[in-house]
């Protein structure tokens, strides 16, 4: 069955390998350049604290790197969804299932190899991207932000395993390639958004810090912001009188007069007990979060695959 899987997928595998090689070469050239710029500049600019102006790379490469977020989805759509659906649609499963092999084994071996292939591809892409992102993350401290967290480390492997399982499950359930593809796309994109924008913020109890309105030293490293703003002495947010705002928050009534002298707003609010807060997940939790998120997607993939096997067993060919 392994040989059969190889025979059926070798051209797609070759295409994927070629695309990966092209990506790797492009990122290697651009990444080496960025690393060189970073190392020669960092000694000086870090001392001066003006590294923000440093231009590490061409915008096209950043776009390319951000686009790798689609790799897991593409493997699920174009390897996972057709794996079962295309065979059922064209009836070739009747050829495969009448060889001296059980349907269960037929599904297990093919699904196994494709899951492995998707995981390896996503892992390899992520490895290159993570390396490429190194100087940029050091400069901008945004490794934990959405769109960066999602394309580096081990989460792309979890996404790829999930997307592949989703495709296989959809193919088994809907029995036709196009619906299976659409369900994979919608299901994967929807769940990823939900987790990235909401659930991820709550994997662990976030840390809250308070600081003066006048000076706001952010936490060290690339943290993940959960929420931020201004609170009053009782912990309540400021209630404004007019349309005036300070740092995006309404100016409380007691400091209404300070509006005429913008420089006095912050001291006035500080004097009345107002302070800024930041609720965040510290940078030190990056790998814990990577592990939690990968785990969630792998568990979901296992559930989908279990359902696929159950459907295969229950339903007639």
């Amino acid at each position, binding site marked *: 069955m392994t040989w059969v899987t190889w*025979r*059926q997928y070798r051209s797609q595998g070759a295409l994927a390998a070629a695309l990966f090689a092209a990506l790797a070469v492009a990122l290697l050239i651009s990444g080496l350049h960025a690393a060189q710029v970073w190392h020669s500049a960092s000694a000086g600019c870090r001392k001066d604290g003006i590294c923000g102006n440093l231009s590490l790379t061409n915008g096209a490469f950043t776009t390319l790197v951000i686009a790798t977020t689609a790799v897991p989805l593409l493997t699920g759509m174009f390897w996972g969804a057709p794996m079962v659906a295309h065979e059922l649609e064209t009836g070739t*499963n009747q*050829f495969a299932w*009448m*060889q*001296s092999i059980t349907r269960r084994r037929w599904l297990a071996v093919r699904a196994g190899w494709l899951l492995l292939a998707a995981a390896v591809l996503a892992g390899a892409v992520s490895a290159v991207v993570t390396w490429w992102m190194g100087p940029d993350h050091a400069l901008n401290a945004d490794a934990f932000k959405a769109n960066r967290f999602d394309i580096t480390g081990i989460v792309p492997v979890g996404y790829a395993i999930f997307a592949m399982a989703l495709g296989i499950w959809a193919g088994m359930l809907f029995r036709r390639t196009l619906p299976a593809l659409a369900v994979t796309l919608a299901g994967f994109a929807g769940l990823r958004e939900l987790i990235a924008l909401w659930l991820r913020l709550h994997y662990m109890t976030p840390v809250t810090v308070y600081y003066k309105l006048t000076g706001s030293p952010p936490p060290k490293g690339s943290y993940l912001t959960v929420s931020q703003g201004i609170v009053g002495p009782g912990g309540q947010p400021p209630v404004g009188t007019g349309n005036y705002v300070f740092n995006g928050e309404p100016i409380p009534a007691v400091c209404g007069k300070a509006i005429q002298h913008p420089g006095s707003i912050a001291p006035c609010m500080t004097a009345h007990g107002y302070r800024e807060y930041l609720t965040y997940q510290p940078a030190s939790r990056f790998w814990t979060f990577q592990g939690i998120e990968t785990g969630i997607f792998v568990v979901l993939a296992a559930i989908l695959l279990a359902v696929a096997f159950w459907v295969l067993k229950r339903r007639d060919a």
Partner: protein
Amino acid sequence: MTAVIQTSGLTKHYGRVTALSDCTLTVPEGRISALVGANGAGKTTLLRLLAGLAAPTAGEAVVLGGTPRQDPAYLAEIGFLAQEIPLYRRLTAQDHIGIGAHLNPRWDGALVRDRLASLKIPLDRPAGTLSGGQRAQLALALTLAKRPRLLLLDEPLAALDPLARQNFLASLAEAAAPKGEGEVGGGLAIVLSSHLIADIERVCDHLILLAASRVQLCGDTETLLAQHRVLTGPRKDTTAIARTHLIVREDNTARQTTLLVKLNGPVIDPTWTVDEPNLEEIVLGYMSQDEAGHGVGRGQAAGRLSAIGGDR
């Protein structure tokens, strides 16, 4: 006599649709059995149940001494060729031979190559580019290369032109012919569904007739031919005949009556001209009976079924 296939009360429902109802039949060893019946009579369902591709709702089948099941040892014994001739369109014959070699314990790749060479079917072209007849021959060769003990073929002739049909049937007859001394119990047993009775009459020596999801007729063709007669005579009352024999079909014109009867002794009345029917006439007789009497004929058909069942 050992049976290759024995089913009792085999029933399959798909939702509310009854695809096969209370199917009880026996196919003895070494036969080429024709499975005939109208469209939707349950032929494909029966074959799929026997192949283990579907599970029965009720009843049971014993095929080659075991229940059809998902088990490599069972699957190795069965060759099933679906009506759609499933082949991977983008893979060549050579690729298919490779797949078979990897998935079957006793695989005869040389058999496929020899057959394709003798039929001048290229090994290196994608299956999707072959003609319908070539695909059917390739699929049959691949099915035979498994070296199954039972071959189940669902409408293999449907896609073929008359010449290809003849070649295909010749291939089948050849495959079914008893092999050398090493082979136990003769050649391979074949069940083949088809609408083309005239074609399969030449190769089949056993017949199963399904109508309205039920078995109407099952037996060796020689026995069936010997049991039935066509009686032709001036138009008259048929109750006398019906007293001894079983009237399968009755056709009346203004002056003449034609009967297909299942004999139960000699026909004594000399006003009848007695002729031997061919297989097609028998099959059509039973098929039209079902068509004519869905309401009234139902009980009748069941009565006949048990009468037929008796002579196994």
